[in-house]
């Protein structure tokens, strides 16, 4: 009579699958990163056309291979200063037209098979990832794309601090250069009914092999903490990468609402008009009511 259990069964099955995947991929440190990862503030470049264009170039070259941005038309990029000719020559690779939507080149089914989950559409991702009265989705993207580290225990060989056990590999790795991650966890452990504090330092080398060191902390007074530190072996390259990611995040923020700049510009005039209208309405009201005793 009820078909609802079918869905429940389906969901349990998926949960089991995900659970199995997670088990398969989990390594010793996976549990350490609990709670929300603190996000870096993305630089605000929304008025910088060069940054938006660089972000668009990187987005089309890297992200659009698997993801789509199906609410976006290529020629919408004219709003950030590109011409039809530039779009045609630099951003269209497989015979699309400038008026086409930015559809991905892989199917959702393939994506699901290859990565465990279909790569989501990115049109409005910068808005979707925002937190109520908190950091914006742009900050999330800026942080997420900069917190990949090599981990040989993962299926793709990569893991991510902002998105633990992420399905997506580090697509932009060759632009970032090799990095080493040091994770320091201070926590309380219980051994033979006795509570004590310890510090676990795990280093993921640039090839993704990890070494862990446990130090007991005698007389420790403080709270549990998790700290992550990246060390770039090629600092110049890594800095250039950060700059590129800021541009990608910036582009994605623009793409999530291409009208946002125009909206604010019009808004100033609207409020200016309403301000004048308010004064007129106020004086009109006063002139009628001054005779009312």
């Amino acid at each position: 009579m009820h078909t609802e259990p079918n869905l429940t069964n389906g969901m349990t099955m998926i949960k089991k699958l995900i659970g199995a995947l997670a088990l398969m991929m989990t390594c010793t440190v996976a549990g350490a990163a609990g709670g929300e990862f603190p996000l870096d503030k993305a630089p605000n470049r929304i008025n910088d056309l060069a940054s938006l264009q660089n972000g668009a170039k990187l987005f089309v070259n890297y992200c659009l291979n698997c993801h789509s941005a199906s609410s976006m038309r290529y020629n919408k990029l004219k709003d950030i200063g590109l011409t039809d000719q530039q779009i045609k020559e630099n951003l269209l690779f497989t015979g699309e037209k400038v008026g086409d939507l930015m559809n991905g080149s892989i199917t959702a089914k393939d994506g699901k098979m290859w990565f465990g989950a279909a790569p989501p559409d990115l049109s409005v991702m910068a808005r979707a990832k925002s937190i109520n009265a908190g950091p914006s989705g742009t900050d999330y993207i800026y942080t997420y794309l900069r917190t990949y580290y090599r981990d040989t225990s993962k299926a793709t060989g990569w893991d991510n601090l902002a998105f633990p056990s992420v399905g997506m590999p580090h697509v932009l790795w060759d632009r970032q250069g090799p990095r080493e991650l040091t994770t320091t966890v201070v926590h309380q452990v219980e051994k033979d009914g006795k509570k004590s504090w310890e510090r676990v330092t795990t280093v993921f080398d640039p090839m993704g092999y990890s070494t862990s060191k446990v130090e007991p902390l005698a007389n420790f007074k403080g709270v549990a903490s998790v700290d992550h530190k990246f060390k770039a072996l090629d600092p110049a390259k890594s800095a250039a990468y950060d700059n590129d990611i800021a541009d990608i995040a910036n582009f994605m923020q623009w793409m999530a609402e291409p009208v946002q700049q125009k909206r604010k510009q019009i808004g100033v005039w609207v409020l200016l008009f309403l301000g004048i209208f308010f004064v007129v309405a106020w004086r009109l009201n006063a002139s009628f009511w001054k005779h009312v005793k």
Partner: protein
Amino acid sequence: MAGEKSVETTGLLGWIDRRFPLTATYKAHLSEYYAPKNFNFWYFFGSLALLVLVLQIVTGIFLVMHYKPDAQFAFQSVEYIMREVPGGWFIRYMHSTGASMFFVVVYLHMVRALIYGSYRKPRELIWIFGVAIFLCLMAEAFFGYLLPWGQMSFWGAQVIVNLFSAIPFIGPELSIWIRGDYVVSDATLNRFFAFHVIAIPLVLIGLVAAHLVALHEVGSNNPDGIDIKAKKDKYGRPLDGIPFHPFYTVHDILGVAGFMIIFMAIVFFAPEMGGYFLEYNNFIPADPLKTPPHIAPVWYFTPFYSMLRATTDDFTWVLAGAAVVAALVMFFKCKGAAKLIVPVVLLVVAVLLRLIDAKFWGVVAMGGAVVLLFFLPWLDYSPVRSIRYRPGWHKWLYGIFFVNFIVLGYLGTQAPTDTFNLMSQIGTLIYLAFFLLMPVWSRLGTFKPVPDRVTFHAH
């Protein structure tokens, strides 16, 4: 000519007036409709609610021209409106901001009615139509929220429709009947669309008309809660009244100007309002296989959502206890047949509170919190209408009630914790006690003398 009405007007207007009461209607509702001259800030919100209703209908018409009520295309069509329809983003933001601002305005309008006793005799029907409008508004907002077909649209609808399955015996079948499917789906989207764009708005407009006709029949209340028709000049015009037009039309234009500044500031500079007017999760297309970790309704529903969540199994013990105490009190207080009937009904409720699943009582608490408002005119026994002439501690009670409502609203947006749950349980009790004990507390205390004429300071 035989049968032709004689009118004062001439020319075209005279021609119309002989066939249609144009001048008479204009006089009755505008130029010779006398409203109290001491209206204050709180009296802006009625006309503002009407303004927002018109805005929602007009923007809604344009949205329907481009929106596709189809699970496959709905999400995409909203983005299409945002990007490719000329000015579509402006129309959509006005509509989404309008939904929230409708509730802001209506809540403030209801606060006004509460503090000045605008629901008291002879305005009970105005109040009842008003509460019905509020209910329709909630239905309208709920149905409309599914249409963008985002994650919150989908799961919000799923949670609310599932509530009906808590009704004993018929619940499960009923919720399937409402959805038209076993889960929220394309069928649900289509029927919600029908409700949102035609069924509810029709009822809403009818109720608004009834609300206004009833208001103009008995006349507005005022901050002093005085009947201005008691004191009239030799032409039969209330001494404290003033023609609605032009005095309150220019006054309301001022209110509209102030409101539009706030409204447009949100539309142009903060259309998401930090994720409270447009929830961020709703920028992810609906996915029936991925339950969001935290499902919260939009802010205007959260006070009632808190009461729903507060009603746990433990809490039904408290409610059952309260019903038993009430039964005892009623046994000693009531006379005649009521002496037996009322306590027995209350005792049955107490038993049922423990017999039926708490989830059902959560739904009852949430629905009851709104339904209770209908009875307000018969719960208030205070000898004066306006809060201005009530005992000082009544003002504190109203203050606590309003703050409590806001706290419940805040709790409804948050993920549940033990402390928050306890807080919303206390909040629910405060909300219910405020109304259910009103027949007792509203007549207690020393009331101030009510003046003959309204308090008015010339501008």
